[in-house]
């Protein structure tokens, strides 16, 4: 079955990203297809490569990135939500005149249309948030 996943909160402050990650991993292990993980609202904060959580704690950006690499996941960060919150890729940084970017390689920035598209193409869309 084709699943779409929506993550609406950043890492650590709310459990949403943890639950979404565990759900996505379990779905993949059961042989389901994950057509997209879409990060919206504060969910875009999962994509920063600058995060340095305590060594004895989980690193959600790394967990998502490793899962994406192993399963060729399409992990999309909403551009409008990301701009508000300071999550940029190299292109965006250049376009906005910013001197740095912070997105991790496993994520790509795109528009809200990718969320609707996931809703259309997935058999099931599951939202995690606060």
């Amino acid at each position: 079955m084709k699943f779409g996943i929506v993550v609406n909160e950043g890492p650590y402050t709310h459990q949403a990203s943890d639950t979404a990650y565990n759900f996505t991993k379990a779905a993949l292990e059961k042989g389901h297809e994950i057509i997209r993980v879409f990060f919206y609202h504060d969910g875009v904060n999962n994509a920063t490569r600058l995060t340095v959580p305590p060594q004895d704690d989980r690193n959600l950006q790394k967990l998502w990135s490793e899962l994406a690499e192993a399963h060729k996941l399409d992990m999309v960060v909403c551009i409008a939500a990301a701009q508000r919150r300071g999550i940029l890729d190299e292109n965006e940084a250049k376009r906005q005149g910013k001197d740095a970017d912070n997105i991790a390689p496993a994520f790509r920035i795109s528009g809200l249309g990718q969320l609707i598209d996931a809703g259309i193409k997935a058999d099931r869309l599951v939202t995690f948030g606060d």
Partner: protein
Amino acid sequence: MSDAKKFLYLNRKAPYGTIYALESLEVVLIGAAFEQQVSLAFVDDGVYQLMAGQNTKGSGFKNFSNTYKALGDYDVRNLYVEKESLDERGLSVDDLMPITHDTDDEEDLPSIMVVSRAEMAKVMSEQDVVLSF
């Protein structure tokens, strides 16, 4: 449109205190280009999103409430508001913005439908995709 999906946007949070109302509206506007069947549900504190007379001058916020009035231009015509949620908050439909849409035949049809909790449950059960905010 026969293979269009039914999308429901479920709004349960007040505007301004959190950003969910505004960013939900951004999804609705973008989603309109996809020609799906779109409905919006306003339940619990979500009903405050439709309050008439929102004035953000003193708070520094952008007042985005007029965008709801423009939804008809995007072919978003079904705004379901739960009656029980209004009642609990001391509100009635008269406290909400007038929101209308035109069809090929008629103009200024009301977009807001106040429905009972039982009717809202039925609306929800007919959707293909529910996006929660």
